């Protein structure tokens, strides 16, 4: 791992993250087992793994929803174990499990999260106007969220996530279950984040998405990070040059 001195203040650095769940039926589950990686600003870091690999658990620890059993991570220089509120102020988190409040309108939803982020009301208004314009959302800004289509909901979620202009964006399988066009909105948005020099962490089990989007990839399996390298290096693992083949090869070799 590189030891870029300025990294800690703008990116994400996970060091030996471990999460053990106590499950009634399965006993102790090592959902995440000694995971370390770095993600830099202006870079999309992909977390690739099959169902149950430990992606969600890792990202939940990064966003302070779960406490690591051991290890730590820093987000923009703040520790996820000791400086939870500061970490959360600097991240935008979006997943299939971050739904909207159905009884609030799109605008109320966005304003609420602006307030929770301690933004000034004028600033919320200004930023909301820009973002609603950008995503072409003015038509349904005052419609209750439960009446919106999935695509519209995704847009509201994106605005909710970036309203406070966080430096680190964390996406947990954001395109799961979405149609081509709606996923496209998200993919475009992730690219936009890279242009804006944000640090993006993106988890998925879709190999193509990794290929399309990510600069560097962390390969996670059974809670262990099996590889962590630039996408080009990963693809050169096999003759075919496909991510999928590389994934299978690495998993078979290391487990």
């Amino acid at each position, binding site marked *: 791992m590189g030891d870029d001195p300025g990294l800690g203040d703008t990116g994400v650095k996970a060091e030996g993250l471990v999460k053990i769940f106590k499950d009634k039926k399965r006993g102790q589950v090592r959902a995440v087992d000694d995971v370390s990686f770095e993600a830099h600003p202006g870079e999309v870091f992909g977390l690739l793994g099959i169902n149950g690999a430990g992606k969600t658990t890792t990202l*939940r620890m990064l*966003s302070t*929803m*779960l406490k690591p059993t051991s290890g730590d991570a820093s987000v923009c220089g703040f520790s996820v174990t000791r400086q939870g509120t500061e970490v959360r102020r600097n991240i935008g988190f979006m997943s299939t499990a*971050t739904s*909207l409040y159905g009884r*609030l309108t799109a605008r*109320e939803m966005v304003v*609420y999260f602006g307030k929770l982020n*301690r933004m000034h009301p004028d600033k919320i208004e200004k930023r909301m106007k820009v973002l609603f314009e950008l995503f072409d959302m003015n038509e349904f800004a005052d419609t209750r969220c439960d009446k919106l289509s999935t695509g519209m909901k995704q847009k509201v979620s994106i605005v909710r996530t970036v309203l406070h202009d966080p430096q680190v964006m964390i996406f947990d399988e954001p395109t799961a279950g979405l149609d081509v066009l709606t996923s496209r909105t998200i993919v475009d948005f992730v690219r936009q984040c890279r242009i804006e020099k944000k640090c993006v962490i993106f988890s998925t089990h879709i190999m193509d998405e990794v290929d399309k989007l990510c600069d560097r990839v962390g390969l996670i399996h059974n809670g262990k990070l099996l590889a962590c390298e630039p996408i080009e290096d990963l693809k050169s693992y096999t003759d075919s040059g496909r991510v999928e083949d590389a994934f299978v090869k690495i998993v078979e070799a290391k487990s």
Partner: protein
Amino acid sequence: MNSAWTVFRKELLDVMRDRRTLLFMLVIPTLSIPVLMWITSGAMTHFLEKLAKEKVDVLVLGQQHDPKLVDELRQRSNPEKAGNRLAKVLEQYGLGEKELALVKGEGKEAFVRLLKKKNVDPKEFIGKVMDSVNARDFDATASNIATQAFPPNFRIITKLDRHPDLSPDDDDYKDVLLNAVRTDEIAAVVEIPKDSMKKIKDEDTTRITIRYLETSDRSTMALKGLKRIFKSMSKRMAIERIKAHGLPEGFAAPIEIRAERLPGPGLLVKLMSQFLPYMILIFSFLGALYPAIDLGAGEKERGTLETLLVAPVSRLSLVLGKFGVVLTAALVSSLLATVSLAISLQAGFLSDLSVLSGEAFSFSATEAITAIVMIIPISCIFSALLLALSIFAKSFKEGQAYASPLQMIIILPALVSILPGVKLDWMTASIPIVNVSLALKEIFTGNLDQHWAHMALIFISTAVVAGLLLWFAAWWFRREQVLFRS
């Protein structure tokens, strides 16, 4: 704290847009009491009227032993023959059974108030009533008017269709009777003793047996009616005997009593102080129930919990904001129930009652404030408990499943205010929920002055428990095992 306020305002808005919460917080507490009262009073009146109007059969055995006595019984148990001039007078003044039920057992004053409410001149009415019953003293008659105006309605029969020869000496005598009463063939049985006529002639006492069935309403009503008839027959005979001996009329009645209620808290206050505490506690709980489930389990079910948890807000602020909304709902709901009960009692079927007793249900500022001060901490307990349960649950359904047993645990101690004779003392003051229920009862009865020490104890202990539970809810909300249950 700023964020707790932000959370509070958003959750309040959210919850107010939920029809179920509105239903439980606003509509049910407001409407359930008047509707319940309307239905029960309507149903009661209906069934009582039906029972009263129904002509039931009474079997008289041993008619041959005293035909004259049975004749008089027959006369008196037939409303048309009993020929009631009194009933006609009452009808003329628009006094039905319902109004008379109100003044039953009351003295002259109650009548005067009732008549004034109907804009009737009491003097003229009293004159006509006394004329119709040949009474001299209205005060003595007043309490009996209702009973006299509506005599029982019996058909006297002397044998059973299927057992024409039944006699008290038969082995299966009681079994046959039991069967006949059970099947509603007859309502009761009157046994005239063999020596009845002789005993009466000898100015002695004849012993008549009435057989009835405790579990049958027709039968117990018949028993009451028969007792009344025999009592007045007995009185008539006594007066005749006294006159025959040239003694004064009061000879056989050295003592006559009349119960007069003191002015002050009466039936209305009693009812209010019994039902209000129970209502307040139940509606406080019910008002908190839906918002609590919505704000806890609802976040999980709708997948908004993570959205909220990644916001830079402390878990304490989240809990406080949510708790505030649940508590508000509990207080609004119990307040509405109180107002609704007060209005229903004043305006509803008990309005006549309050007019009669000349009382109104009202309380002083001190009493109102003390009541509110007692209600707030217990509502905090309900809110914190329900919120903690709800955040543990993964879905609405699970949340409701946890809340139902809790509801049972709360209803039973809350009911204590309705039980007669349970007083607020140091023992009852230390039982949670029971103590608040009784404290409210004492406040509404007007006994606050005697219970300041109890009130202080109850307030402090309830507030301490409420604080602990709120602290628990906040701690609970920080646990991964609660928020991310698998």
